């Protein structure tokens, strides 16, 4: 599903990613771990075209991204297949929870308002947030915001989901909730890539773990091999 081949990227003369190659299939949860500043988030952002890269290729499904700036039409197609949940959630503060989730279907998929809202309600129910449809994001707890962000990304029916530090802003109970959501989404057939510091989370949720240090992959394998029991 995701095939990264020899990806490199420099920023201001400094190498951020060096010769990164990685495969992640459907129903898999790939955890990317490693020290801060190791290039984890940058790698994730290269997968949905928020950042361009210098060499190598990224193939997601039938879309192939080449080095340099990506054509706008390719980006739109890639992003429709790739949902992303940000570390700070980045919910839209001027919209209600329901509108946050319905905006993508309405604007990007051009669904009529009623249909988009119906779809949004279904996604909110899937993450257990249906009761908060009318609330503003700022009134929600971190875990609730996280789940709304997941519902928002899911609403466009992506085949790949990217998570940037999904548990860093959450307490242990909320982390467990989010982990369950991620695992159940993977079982439903999605490809998941999760950048995380949380080794306990990676051990329990991931099917493969990739360690990224100073922009290079140092180790790849099952969680038990990389992180220990």
């Amino acid at each position, binding site marked *: 599903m995701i095939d990264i081949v020899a990806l490199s990227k420099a920023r201001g003369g400094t190498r951020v990613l060096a010769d990164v190659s990685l495969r992640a299939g459907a129903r898999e949860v790939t955890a990317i771990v490693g020290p801060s500043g190791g290039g984890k988030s940058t790698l994730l952002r290269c997968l949905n075209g928020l950042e361009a890269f210098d060499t190598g290729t990224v193939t997601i499904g039938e879309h192939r991204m080449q080095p340099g700036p990506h054509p706008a039409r390719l980006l739109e197609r890639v992003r429709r297949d790739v949902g992303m949940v940000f570390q700070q959630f980045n919910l839209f503060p001027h919209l209600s929870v329901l509108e946050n989730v319905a*905006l993508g279907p309405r*604007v990007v998929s051009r669904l009529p308002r009623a249909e988009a809202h119906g779809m949004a309600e279904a996604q909110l129910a899937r993450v257990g947030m249906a009761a908060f449809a009318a609330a503003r994001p700022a009134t929600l707890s971190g875990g609730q915001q996280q789940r709304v962000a997941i519902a928002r990304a899911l609403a466009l029916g992506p085949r790949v989901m990217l998570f940037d530090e999904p548990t860093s802003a959450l307490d242990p109970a909320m982390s467990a909730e989010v982990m369950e959501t991620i695992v159940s989404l993977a079982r439903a057939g999605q490809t998941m890539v999760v950048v995380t510091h949380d080794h306990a989370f990676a051990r329990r949720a991931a099917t493969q773990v990739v360690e990224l240090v100073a922009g290079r992959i140092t180790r790849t394998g099952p969680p038990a091999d990389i992180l220990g029991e």
Partner: protein
Amino acid sequence: MLVPAVIGMSAHSGLEGGELAAVVARGELIWAADQEGGGPHVFPDPDAPQRLTGFEVDLAELIAAELGVKARFQQGQWDRLPLLLGHPADCVINGIELLPERRRDYRCSRPYFAYGLQLIARRDGPPETVAQLATAGPAGRWRVGVLTGSAAEAYLRSHPEFEVDVIGYDGTIDSLEQVQAGVLDAALMDDCIFNFYADRFAGLRAAGRPFGGGYYTVLTARDTPQLSAAIDEALGRIIADGRLKTLYDRWDLGGRQQILALRDAAEIPAAPRRPLRELVAEMLPLLLSAAGMTVLLACLSFPLAILTGLGVALGRLYGPAWLRPLLTGFVEVVRGTPLMLQLYAIFFLLPKVGLALPALVAAVLGLALNYSAYESEIYRAGLKAVPLGQFEAALALGMTKWQALRHVIVPQAVRLVMPPVTNDFIALFKDTSVCSVITVIELTKRYSVLALSTGRIVELAVITAILYLAMSWPLSLLSRRFETGQEQRP
């Protein structure tokens, strides 16, 4: 520096009987006029534009010499020259027509010049005479330009049977330009003015003979009787010994006819002072309709300014690279030049390239253009204040750049900038008064015309201020609501 300042203050305090002595002690007679009013009265010397010339410049020097002092010029806007009396000017010498209202509110000298009213039209068009104004022209009502506050304006307004829209200008040349450009059908002004400028406007002609008319007078304040009497005596001597005739002959103003006309000048009685209540009842509807024009100008121009400003801000932040410097240049030029100049350019200069806009349209466009530059800066700040993560989240959903702006960034920016934008709306409300330079009569202009024609300067100022407050107060409340709404929003 302190001593002359103190003397200067006492000179303007109007001490009973001391005002003439104060002028003499100062050694200067400060006379007010408007050089924009133009020739032959007072205008910049074409050969040395920093120097003023005109028959009234010469007259002021003659009068001052008679008082044993030097003449010093004080610039003012013509229709508001009388407001300068007492401070900083001693007298007004600038084609001020001797009218009953002026005799009521000021001291008027004996006449020093006789004028007639002259209608001016294009060579190739009607009207032929003033009488023709009583029936509608080929394009409906006649559009006739006058100098605001002049006898020509009073004449046209006192003839309701004329099918005429009277349009007031701040300078006489402006109305001649507008007739030549085809914006106006005709202009009405003192005959000596057209005689002076006729060569410059080859496409214009005198329509019919001069008619009506009257006399020019030197205005002084009511509380300066000695100065007024001294000026009268000075004029008497200048007329008697032939110096005034020589002066007029030098300016090609028909010296002998002038002296004969002045000799026959009949006494003009002062107008009665009307009770305030009656005056207010009569003036309030006029002030209210002028306030309506202020509201109209603000409410038409501000939405345009907001839309243009938002477009400029978006273009500068997210537009193509070639567009950004152009928009930056637009903002700098518009912010760096006065609103009055922009209005002037739109209204008086565009007709020269064949685009004659109605005054209201020009005013709305000018205000919108000017404010769009300021609004664009506010919006730019608002757009930059929305966190980058919001933009990325929208892009990650598959939105295009412009979809992300429209649905995510702009709505948040608009909420952020609501208080400063409302604040600017209040400012624009008051800036509408500048539109009077392009003949739009809004509240401030109406006030100044009425105040000078009735002499009730303070009373009408209070009413006008109340009207402005009544209009801007609700906006202030609205602005405050936006602000508190934003504070409450977490």
